[in-house]
């Protein structure tokens, strides 16, 4: 047991070291590509808290991303604040919003919850499109980061990396605390969890707020990196779908699942679009379908179980009766 732990720690530390040193030996585009992977890893991991552990499939998580981005844009552009302030405000603002809408919306279950969260994101998009302070549908500029080109790439990469580590660390702590067990209990059977004295409303709301907090932080860094924000892309349903696909692909309800999902999905999609200018979306869709059919528990299951091969795939299919 001790040996195994040591082994994991070694592998983990080594991977982290590679990731930290990686920008120093890469060209700018590869760093940017890495930054995008980290961003989606944050968002997929944040979705995992509410979708994977708590079992509430939120289809509106992009709303926190958009809110984080817009809080950053408004504070920096209109109020002239420093990014550090805007970054924190984005996280806490998104978390506050999660609490406010979570109280009514988290009473819903299953499909109803999914549809309600989808509606929240769309409504927020419409609101932002029509507000004066967000400069409506034509979009809002942010001040550009005043560093050398290389410096800018390092800044955004390490901001995303730091935020991802924070996300995973806090999720890990939550999982090993009472809250984590409450969440899993809610996922397995909410009524039973309620009857044994778990304050399900409180637990769910905290989970939703945490999910919003980290997604908001990602949105904040994204907005500063792009230096321009528009309601359509900032509140795009596609972004939510991407978070979910990554989480499922990598392994829902596992700490490192979404991270692995984000990494592999982005690499696959990038490689495909390198080779097929138009058909890449078709192939990408096929890959995702195959993955869901053969490894419904996600890539992480394959990695941790050290199983790979026909028998593993067949076992999965039998188990899930596809």
């Amino acid at each position, binding site marked *: 047991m001790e040996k195994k732990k040591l082994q994991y720690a070694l592998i983990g530390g080594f991977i982290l070291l590679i990731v930290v040193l990686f920008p120093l030996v890469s*060209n*700018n*585009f590869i760093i940017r590509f890495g930054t995008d992977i980290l961003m989606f890893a944050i968002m997929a991991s944040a979705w995992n808290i509410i979708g994977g552990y708590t079992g509430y499939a939120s289809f509106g998580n992009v709303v926190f991303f958009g809110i984080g981005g817009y809080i950053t844009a408004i504070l920096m552009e209109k109020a002239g604040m420093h990014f550090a302030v805007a970054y924190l405000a984005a996280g806490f603002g998104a978390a506050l919003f999660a609490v406010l809408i979570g109280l009514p919306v988290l009473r819903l279950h299953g499909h109803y919850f999914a549809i309600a969260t989808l509606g929240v994101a769309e409504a927020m998009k419409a609101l932002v499109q029509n507000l004066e302070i967000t400069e409506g*549908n*034509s*979009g809002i500029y942010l001040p*550009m980061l005043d560093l050398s080109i290389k410096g800018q790439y390092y800044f955004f990469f390490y901001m995303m990396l730091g935020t991802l580590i924070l996300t995973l660390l806090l999720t890990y702590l939550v999982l090993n605390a009472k809250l984590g067990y409450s969440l899993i209990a809610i996922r397995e059977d909410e009524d039973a969890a309620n009857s044994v004295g778990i304050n399900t409303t409180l637990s769910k709301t905290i989970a939703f707020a945490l999910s919003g907090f980290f997604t908001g932080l990602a949105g904040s860094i994204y907005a500063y990196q792009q230096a321009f924000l528009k309601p359509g892309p900032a509140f795009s349903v596609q972004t939510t779908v991407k978070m979910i696909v990554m989480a499922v692909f990598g392994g829902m309800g596992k700490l490192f699942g979404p991270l692995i999902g984000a990494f592999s999905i982005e690499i696959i999609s990038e490689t495909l679009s390198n080779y097929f200018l138009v058909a*890449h979306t078709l192939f990408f869709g096929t890959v995702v379908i195959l993955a869901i059919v053969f490894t419904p528990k996600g890539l992480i299951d394959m990695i941790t179980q050290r199983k790979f091969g026909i028998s593993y795939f067949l076992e999965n299919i039998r188990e899930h009766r596809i």
Partner: protein
Amino acid sequence: MIIMKRLLKNFFYGFLTIGLVLSFGHFAQAASKSVIKLGCAISFTGGESRTGKLYRDSYDMAVEQINKNGGVKVGNQTYQLKIVYYDDESDPTKSSKFVEKLIAEDKVNFLLGPYSSGITIPDSLVAQRYKVPMIEGGGASGKIFSRGNKYIFGTLPPAGQYFKSTLEMLKTFNPVPKTIAILYSDDKFDISVAEGTEKLAKEMGFDVALYEKYAERATDFSSILTKIKALNTDVVLVAGHTEESLNFTQQAKELNVNPKLISMTVGPSEADFRKSLGKDAEYIFGVASWSTQMNFKGYLFKDTQEFVKEFKAKYNYDPDYHNASGIADVAVFKDAIERAGSLNKEKVRAAIASTKLDTIYGTVEFSENGQIKGTSVALQILGGEIYQVYPNGAKKPVYPFPSWKTRK
């Protein structure tokens, strides 16, 4: 020991994978020396893919035409043009990422723009960061040019300039009309048109007697028309959509409102509009930044008509202003590179800024902020057909309007 062995094996496979992934990018980089690479991340898929295709077709056609006719001459050397494309999936995040890839990995010399303003802005910021000039034909929003970005040039005219040629035309009439009514639908584009027109009209000394907004898809214009009748304005300018233009014209006739000139942004140039209104469409003015009926002396092609013919033969559809704008983008690059006599990005940027080039799209000249100077023209319906009447039109404008009652 076993653990260490297994670890090493894992790492070996890990490195192998990472190495494979990283090496993918390097296969495509064997380019010959005499090629100028233009980078373009544009929509092949996603919401903007239909219009994105119009630009790609134009970019390709212009490049083909240049390469066929001797390429681009820089000093004593000739270069062929080549476009490196990526599909941005109509997503601004992807688009800006691919622009970074074009610059950092594909080492393109210059950039062509994507389609739609919302995607152009993040892309233009990357161009600015790397100081690589980008010419775009697909973003008209003033926002793109509002931040003093010196590396972005756009060939779609600003919405606010749409009626500029019409206002200039008014000045040539005798007597010069004095009062103007501006009506506009409440969508974003028309609001920009109206705001710009009001400002221009005031600068040119006209009296904007009526400035009124109506709801998009409005069908009843009687209250607005009554106001126009009461104010007796000389000129009525309408920024709206085809249906609204139709309704407005019909009701103007019913209520016998007779301004000396009516001009509309959308409608008059469409065949449907003229068919539906029949004789009542006569003498109505329109504006367009470009249409297939125009005839400008070209740079890559002999003239607009020649271009339209060749384009139709090649792609089997009628080019519209998107296509023409795309052709102009590539033409401006060729002209600017040759004038700069170098592939140096700063020199070419300066050359682009001082462009004055006749293309099938019209004369391309950029304002201080990088956007093309308004090139819209005034059109008029005469004898059931639409003609360019100002500037240098095929026919002379008929002014003032014969009143509804006196028409046959």
